[in-house]
């Protein structure tokens, strides 16, 4: 089980990969795709496809993908079309908030959960309480 994190900003996904590693440990494969090929803010289908392939080729049986906003979804769609159907079937796209979802997904993945369970953990990030309740 691996994760691919997509953002308009390379710095965002690099930092997020650090956070994921620190919280969930280094056993979870994390691929990142942030920014455009020429280093601007934006998303790039080829970079996303490369990140997906790097995690799939590492022998992970499935990948959960999280992304930040808007056109990231379109670039991701193009990247998925670029994959072989057999690889595409191993990818699950999550609509979870990127940061919280990535942390929750990675911890779930680190305990050996299935792709579906990992995606469910990420999805719960959307409604997770954050402020203390008395």
């Amino acid at each position, binding site marked *: 089980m691996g994760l691919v994190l997509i953002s308009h900003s390379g710095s965002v996904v690099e930092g997020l990969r650090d956070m994921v590693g*620190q*919280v*969930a*440990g280094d056993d979870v494969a994390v691929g990142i795709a942030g920014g455009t090929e020429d280093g601007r803010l934006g998303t790039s289908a080829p970079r996303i496809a490369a990140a997906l392939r790097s995690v799939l080729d590492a022998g992970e049986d499935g990948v959960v993908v999280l992304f930040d906003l808007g056109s990231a979804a379109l670039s991701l769609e193009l990247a998925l079309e670029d994959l072989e159907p057999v690889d595409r079937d191993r990818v699950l796209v999550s609509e979870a908030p990127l940061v919280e979802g990535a*942390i*929750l997904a990675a*911890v*779930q993945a*680190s*305990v*050996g959960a299935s792709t579906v369970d990992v995606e469910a*953990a990420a999805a*719960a*990030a959307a409604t*997770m*309480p*954050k*402020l*203390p*309740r008395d």
Partner: protein
Amino acid sequence: MPELTLVVADPAGLHARPAARFVQAASKFESRIVIRQGDREADAKSLIALLGLTIRPSSEITLSAVGPDADAALSTLSAELSPYVSQAG
């Protein structure tokens, strides 16, 4: 049912990293393990549930386990939490 009450001593409460370690440790046991704070409780094998408790510093939490490896689970998990808690009472 073995039960253990602890007081969160870390000034940051139970934050993301220790909570994640705790979930990873709990997931290795077969028993159902519950962490309770006041009238709310969470499945110790779920980070979302655990972070959702938003455990504050100085609050009292109770760990309980039901299952074939319940005693071992509680002793492992209390060791896991030991840098962040003190024993209650």
